[in-house]
């Protein structure tokens, strides 16, 4: 009877995950088509509103997707939203100003390949991953609700999606709403990438709480997440295909975006595999 219930629940979750991915594809497709057909022109306020809407929808879909992964004991939604908001606040208050204004990465990071990779890992990667780690470590980590290793991934992905939302709002506003069709695909991929990289940190955080890990365990988690983050940013800008025609030259973001998507989806698959392995071992223990 219990086994039948488990199989039913698993099918139910898979169906929901499938529907979520379809809804994300539909959303991206609708924005892509509308942007191509209407070529919207924005005022400052409509641009900000559009930015918030376009950034929130993919984040919300991925948030539900990762939330569904915790099948044994779903976390309180209020806590998940709280960590999401904390991730967004830390991005807006510390992450973006530190990377853009103090380190001024846009001025030097694209000077050469080494600068892109090292700057992406040491400055962008470590700043972002530490702040997402801090959003979990200094809020929910010691609460009674953080009661299994998988919770580390669930809360960390929520923090990552909060962070990604701020990055995506900033992207729409700084671009002035230009080329939202390609932009919305980028935003969906960035949201997934930020969630999966912090998922790595979350996995290490969860294990650190419930198993006696060595002192290097948590720094290793942050470092791995920062490396993936840096590689993702490098790949995203790597293959910028230049098209030259009579009307002028243009740069296609698609090849770089495709490569970056492979990293994002690969990391997500690895994080989901770790989550399921954790859940299976907990169920086997019971």
């Amino acid at each position, binding site marked *: 009877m219990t086994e039948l219930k488990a199989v039913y629940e698993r099918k139910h979750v898979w169906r929901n995950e499938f529907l979520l991915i379809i809804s994300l594809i539909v959303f991206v497709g609708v924005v892509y088509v509308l942007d191509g057909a209407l070529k919207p022109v924005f005022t400052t306020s409509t641009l900000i509103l559009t930015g918030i809407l376009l950034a929130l929808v993919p984040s919300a879909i991925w948030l539900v997707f990762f939330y569904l992964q915790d099948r044994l004991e779903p976390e309180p939604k209020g806590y998940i939203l709280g960590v999401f908001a904390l991730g967004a606040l830390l991005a807006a208050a510390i992450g973006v100003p530190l990377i853009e204004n103090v380190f001024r*990465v846009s001025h030097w990071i694209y000077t050469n390949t080494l600068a892109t990779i090292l700057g992406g890992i040491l400055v962008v990667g470590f700043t972002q991953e530490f702040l997402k780690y801090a959003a979990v470590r200094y809020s929910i980590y*010691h609460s009674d609700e953080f009661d299994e290793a998988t919770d580390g991934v669930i809360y960390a992905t929520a923090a990552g999606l909060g962070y990604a939302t701020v990055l995506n709002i900033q992207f729409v506003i700084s671009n002035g709403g230009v080329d939202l069709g390609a932009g919305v695909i980028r935003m969906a991929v960035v949201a997934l990438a930020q969630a999966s990289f912090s998922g790595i940190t979350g996995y290490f955080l969860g294990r650190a709480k419930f198993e006696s890990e060595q002192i290097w365990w948590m*720094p290793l988690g942050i470092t791995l997440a920062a490396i993936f983050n840096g590689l993702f940013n490098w790949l995203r800008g790597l293959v910028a295909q230049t098209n030259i025609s009579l009307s002028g030259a243009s740069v296609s973001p698609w090849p770089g975006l495709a490569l970056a998507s492979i990293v994002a989806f690969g990391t997500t698959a690895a994080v989901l595999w770790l989550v399921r392995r954790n859940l299976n071992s907990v169920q086997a223990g019971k």
Partner: protein
Amino acid sequence: MENKKISLGDRYAEITVILITVIALIVGWVYKSGVENSSVPFNVEGIRAQAPKGWLQSEPAGDEILRTTDRTSSGFNTTYVLRKIPLAANTSAAQVASLLTLGHGQDLLAFRVLDQREVTVYGKAAYEISYVYVESNPNLTHKNIPSIVRGADYIYVNDNNAVVVSFWADEKSYDLNLARFHIFLQSISY
């Protein structure tokens, strides 16, 4: 959220994460400084300098011997210009400064001198003019808002030549770019 007592292991892990992040950021800062301050040697007409690496060097025109621009800077692109101007005997740096100021007044929009004085720059006597002007695209259909540019000219008189080093940057990023310009200024020898 009820917090439990933090174990010693937890505390060590927390400190190690903070440490490794701080170390990564310090190394990142050192690397950033290295990239921003890297240079390529320049030697034309007896004037040697270390020009910023990765900047766009334009074809010099007139008395200019070097014009290098940072294409990644926001607003007006930060630019260094080196000029070698032949002088009549006994011409002083102040006289060259007056001529340059007159020229800027004719060529630049809304040109205003902020300060001018004799200075010693890394052991060499020079004359400094600080000024501001507006850079506007002459194309009337161009939609960009004009930039306010801050500039500084350093005039060195050497035998029958004046070596003029100019620094132009967007008013918003002028102070941030000043340290890099001083490295360039220090590298100049003739």
